């Protein structure tokens, strides 16, 4: 069965014990995103700090309701971007989007786990088009919140 290829143990772990969950202060921007097809939703806050003149993701906090893929993805995402320079975090976000849009090719091609780390576990999702939006919900919310946070900074 292909179920196990999508529902990797890492994903189920993050689903049961999501990292960084809960809304925290202070924050620079807050967004609310929804998947209109299924009703999954996420409220996400991002705070950005200045480290030697470079913007760095200080904290990502969120509240959300949704399926195992969307919840686990938000959790893995928050691990990946927290503490990284915004530019680097955005590059990771793009790599993840590429993996999701790879239509299963990402599984065979062995995605770069130096860049994506635990997020490579989501490679199997690309074979189930209906779930891609689930995996991307948290990432899209984070990108939106971060973009808004950067504007606030300016």
């Amino acid at each position, binding site marked *: *069965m292909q179920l196990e290829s999508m529902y990797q143990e890492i994903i189920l772990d993050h689903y049961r014990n999501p990292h960084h969950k809960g809304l925290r202060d202070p924050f620079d921007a807050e967004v609310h995103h929804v998947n209109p097809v*299924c*009703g999954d939703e996420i409220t996400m806050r991002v705070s950005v700090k200045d480290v030697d003149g470079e913007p760095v993701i200080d904290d990502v906090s969120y509240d959300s309701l949704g399926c195992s893929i969307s919840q686990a993805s938000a959790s893995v995402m928050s691990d990946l971007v927290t503490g990284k320079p915004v530019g680097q975090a955005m590059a990771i976000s793009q790599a993840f989007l590429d993996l999701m849009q790879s239509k299963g090719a990402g599984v065979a091609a062995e995605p770069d786990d130096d860049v994506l780390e635990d997020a490579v576990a989501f490679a199997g999702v690309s074979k189930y088009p209906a779930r891609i939006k689930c995996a991307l919900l948290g990432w899209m919310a984070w990108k939106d919140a971060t973009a808004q946070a950067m504007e606030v900074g300016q």
Partner: protein
Amino acid sequence: MTDSPAHLDVAHLDVAHLDVEAIRADFPVLARTVRNDKPLIYLDSGATSQKPRQVLDAEREFYERHNAAAHRGTHLLGEEATDVYEGARAKVAAFIGAEPGEVVFTKNATEAINLVAYTLSGVNGSGPVQVRAGDEILITEMEHHANLVPWQQFCQRTGATLRWLNVTAEGRLDLDRLDSMITERTKIVAVTHQSNVTGTVTPVAEIASAAHERGALVLVDAAQSVPHQPIDVAALGADFLAFSAHKMLGPYGIGVLFGRAELLEAMPPFLFGGSMIEMVRMEGSTFLPPPQRFEPGVPAVAEAAGLGAAVDYLTGLGMGNVAAHEESLTAHALDVLRDHPGVRILGPDTTKDRGGAVAFEVEGVHPHDVGQVLDELGIAVRTGHHCAWPLHRALGVQASTRATFYVYNTHAEVDELADGIRYAQRFFGVRS
């Protein structure tokens, strides 16, 4: 097969209301295998129904032998196409107890409801009802978005106030305040006949009676009832009634708006163009009487042929038998899921005034994940809010998994659904 009344207390009767094996042989898609070479168990007819050969053949035969533009030709094919189109209209009318002139072909139920909401809001001229700022439109929390969002827009356009009946925890309409919710200012009451989530069959006749006493018009969303039970528009008290072909074994792209003759007569057109005009000059145009007034553009005759064949197929089964078969499956589903650990059924726990949509929650497993596991087992259900987001909020859930039953489903498939849920619970570790 003899016809029998709907809503019998028929749980687990050995009587077969339908010859399901023979029916299944008419549906080519049911022979497929899906994921992991599993046979298709299609429990998503609430989203769209599968089509019997007879419907597919009718469309194909129309294109192969009778295709021409209806209502235009002076040639033989044009006559034949017109006969097919008007013949389908007559069949649909008889199916719901209406006159042919009261049947307007639209794209689907959603468009039919929009047609009423637009024209009655006065955008294209005055009609049978004047709606002023402060007047009221009454709907319910149970509505599918198709019978909800157009009325929000109607109220924005006219300044009317949108009010709604609430849903009880059991998934029925709360009618305690019906008399106070319908006031002298209520102009339109729009209500679903059968919920696509909870299966609840609402007391439309009672609501219509109260509405008419106060001079309000009644629109019925029958998208989930026309396919599944015998319908008589007069008995329901419907002034307008909407449904779609694709949910009743027919093709996409065609639906029906029933409107009482005197109402359609008084309504301005919705969409304009060819086919609905009486006379056109550069300075202005006049319009045909109903139903053509509301059917712009070249008629969708092939789709009408398919819908006509669907009506024939269902009439051949007997809608009483269809309803009784579904009631039997629903009773079975409620029985196996009621006592299933970790499963909560949304909606009434009985088949009384309850049709074949069974939506449920599985504790600790999100509907998407339930649906994914069922998909691996070949079982097709729907997950999410099923275009009834406010209903889900009213029932206190974010989203649900929904199985819907139709003429080609079997009791064995209900058992497979229960087994699949158990498998999902084990996979996600919420059950040993």
